[in-house]
């Protein structure tokens, strides 16, 4: 056999699959360098990262137990109550843990770079903010640092993959490389990625990015913790006041003498990058809080929808016939009730029930979104799924007796995944829009107050658009446009990277992206 002539060359191949660890042991330096920098980056923000991580864990926990509750609840309400109890205790444990993580020092926290304070005597150096800078500059400095940190961290994670590819991967080339390389020259897709990273940063590091916190400014502005110091020009002394009281005097309600616009200070020396709301709360902080809940709801919904769509697409493409027809009818049935109407209905019906209170109403919405978005995703990926199911390699796998589940996972899923990603990112835009539309409608729909929600801000500023308080409606909407555009750009980038010649004709994208909001 020819191999005998080739043994020397083949020796490393003949050995058992060497694990990544053993390959790292063979050539430790590139990995060590990467790990060292990563370690520093993580240590810098350990508290915030842990906090963010716990947030995600909590959202997942609530999502999973919530789903279990609903399912079990159909059979036995007492069991559901048990799950609810577990959910609450677990959530409170997690909250406790999160409180602990706040104790872990973080470099880019508001403690290290504070921005609130006052000018003793009304002019001159500031007391309180970092290095005596003006609050605006102190805040801007922290914001820029946080954003820069997030971008560097994301890049470094990507860099980790590059190190792996260059030094530790057995394959010199893989199809993924082409995708990544194409994305690296795809400016529009990169714009999408940057936007996504920015908004994820807002979700994770939101508390450090706002000029004040959601807790102090919005949720409990009348507790002792929420007292702020300011220089009272009338009395000429530094006084303290509840944030809530200060808010009361910092309303933006459309008249010239009662308006705190973007990039201005209010009477209490507080800087408002986006101005204030009609109730005097800080719009920027409100937006950061809204980002978190929006992203959590969207994440759960898209996760659920993608899971259902991907699984059903593979099953219906593999078996076809009546299974396909069954899924089609189910999908048509779900789609037949316009999604926004269904959401309004469910939201209204379940307002103020225990189910409607999980995640401030967000959980229920996420589930309904997930259960109603999959038909669109399914329709969009059914074409590619049918196509891949007809490839000869699927026949080949069948011909040697491979199990259907493995055929779907190994031979079909990798192809569908790209398309799922494309349509998921585009549908996510639709979800964000619909979610804020519900909050905009109010009346118990959408995310319940006082938890910040973007749509509610637009609603608050309705009617003030043509006056000095234009920012209340305008800025949140512009943020949504930016995020949705970013998601679409991301989807476009992935599409161009995986399949430059694919057409965009099919219906999935159309309805998914518009969302009806």
């Amino acid at each position, binding site marked *: 056999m020819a191999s005998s002539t080739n043994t020397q060359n083949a020796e490393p191949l003949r050995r058992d699959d060497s694990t990544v660890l053993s390959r790292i042991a063979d050539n430790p330096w590139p990995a060590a360098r990467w790990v060292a920098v990563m370690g520093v980056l993580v240590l810098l923000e350990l508290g915030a990262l842990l906090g963010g991580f716990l947030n995600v864990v909590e959202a997942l926990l609530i999502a999973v137990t919530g789903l279990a509750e609903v399912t079990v609840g159909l059979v036995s309400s007492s069991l559901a109550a048990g799950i609810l109890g577990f959910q609450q205790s677990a959530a409170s444990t997690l909250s406790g843990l999160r409180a602990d993580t706040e104790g872990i020092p973080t470099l880019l926290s508001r403690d290290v770079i504070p921005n609130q304070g006052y000018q003793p005597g009304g002019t001159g150096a500031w007391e309180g903010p970092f290095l005596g800078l003006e609050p605006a500059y102190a805040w801007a400095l922290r914001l820029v640092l946080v954003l820069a940190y997030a971008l560097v961290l994301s890049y470094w994670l990507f860099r980790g993959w590059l190190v792996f590819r260059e030094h530790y991967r057995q394959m010199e080339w893989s199809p993924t490389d082409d995708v990544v390389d194409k994305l690296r020259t795809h400016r529009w897709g990169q714009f999408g990625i940057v936007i996504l990273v920015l908004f994820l940063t807002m979700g994770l590091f939101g508390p450090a990015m706002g000029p004040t916190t959601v807790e102090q400014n919005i949720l409990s502005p009348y507790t002792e913790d929420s007292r702020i110091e300011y220089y009272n020009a009338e009395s000429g002394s530094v006084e303290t006041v509840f944030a809530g009281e200060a808010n009361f005097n910092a309303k933006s309600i459309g008249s010239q003498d009662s308006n705190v616009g973007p990039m201005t200070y209010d009477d209490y020396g507080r800087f408002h990058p986006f101005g204030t709301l009609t109730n005097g709360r800080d719009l920027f902080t409100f937006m950061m809080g809204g980002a978190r809940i929006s992203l959590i709801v969207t994440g759960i919904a898209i996760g659920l929808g993608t899971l259902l769509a991907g699984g059903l697409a593979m099953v219906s493409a593999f078996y076809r016939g009546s299974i396909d027809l069954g899924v089609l009818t189910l999908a048509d049935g779900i789609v037949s009730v316009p999604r926004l109407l269904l959401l309004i209905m469910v939201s209204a019906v379940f307002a103020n029930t225990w189910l409607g209170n999980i995640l401030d109403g967000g959980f229920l919405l996420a589930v309904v979104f997930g259960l109603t978005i999959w038909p669109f995703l399914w329709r969009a990926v059914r074409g590619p799924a049918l196509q891949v199911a007809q490839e000869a390699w699927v026949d080949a796998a069948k011909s040697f007796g491979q199990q259907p589940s493995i055929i779907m996972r190994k031979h079909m899923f990798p192809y569908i995944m790209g398309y799922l990603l494309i349509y998921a990112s585009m549908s996510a835009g639709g979800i964000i829009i619909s979610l804020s539309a519900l909050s905009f409608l109010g009346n118990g729909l959408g995310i319940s107050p006082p938890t910040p929600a973007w749509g509610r801000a637009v609603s608050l500023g309705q009617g003030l658009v*043509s006056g000095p308080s234009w920012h209340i409606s305008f800025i949140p909407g512009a943020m949504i446009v930016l995020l949705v555009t970013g998601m679409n750009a991301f989807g476009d980038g992935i599409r161009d990277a995986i399949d430059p010649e694919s057409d965009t004709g099919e219906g999935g994208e*159309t309805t998914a992206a518009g969302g009806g909001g």
Partner: protein
Amino acid sequence: MNRSIYLLKRIALALPVILFGLTVTFLILYRGPLDPANAILGQDAAPSDVRRLRVALGYINPDGSPVPLWQQYYGVMSDLLLFDFGNSWAVQRNVSVASIIVSRMPATLWLGFWSVMVALVVGIPTGFFAGLRANSLSDYVASGGGIVWRAMPNFWLAVILAGSLTAGGLMSWYRHFPCGPNENPCAWRTDVVTTPSEVSNLFSTIDLFTGVPVLEMLFIPVPNGFNLLIAFKWILPAALVLGSASMGNEIRIGRTAVLESINSKYVETAKAKGLSPRRIIVKHVGRNAAIPLLPVIMGEFYLLIGGSVLVEKVFSINGLGNLFFRAIIVPDIPVVMALVFIFVLINVFVNITQDLLYTVIDPRVTLEDTG
């Protein structure tokens, strides 16, 4: 397969779809934690009143025993399928739901018609234009505009547009156009709660309040000129907003469809025949590019129904979307059920139309494929 047999089969397949949609709605409304009696009468109503109302609403029997769910289901569904919508509980108490819906329908139809038109007239030409000049500056402007346009939430666009149209806004001139500042009939209003009479008059050949069957509404009569202008002016901003997402989609899909067609082998063959570029684009590219646009255009109806709730609310248009919102908040279950039923019917109808249209514009699509 024969077209009529196909149609029958397609309708047969639509039945489970309709039933599914209605059943889900029924379960949410009747099995969910909704208590219409309390909601209608308030928390501190006398128990006897509540009880009487519940009997009237069909939740409990006169003897106090609850009506079984399946019985409620049967009652509700059979009434719906016979187009018997019953009377309103709360929105306009004891008025027939059919007449309420009929009275609100003109505004929504008018809005829907123009939002489809706006999207078609602006979106498709822009998309074709961008596709024909792919990768030029004008392409980037057009398709970039389409992308952003599509990303704008309807409600936000509506708020901003309504804001800039009010006194002191950037586009306040629109209020006075075309009659000048003082002529009342031309003034554009955001504050109206009722449909302007001009819009009602558009449809004046049909008596709107006698409970004519809904489908009769589709025979839209010929309007008179000035009313038409006023009504158009009144609806244009809302239609622009409602058509926005579809317009963005059409730009985008139109562009890729043109690009795909222009790079095809048959266009090359057409060149080899010695055809002029103009002829190739108009004849050979145009019709092929229309095929992928069909689902987008049909998809507009879907976006329309959901979007009408928001847009009608912001622009205070007294149409079906607004009615649905009020009905679900109150809650007025017969109105909600009836509206959902109508929307589902429209949806199914649009889907079947789309399948049939496919066979018309694309001769390759056979009737078997689409089943």
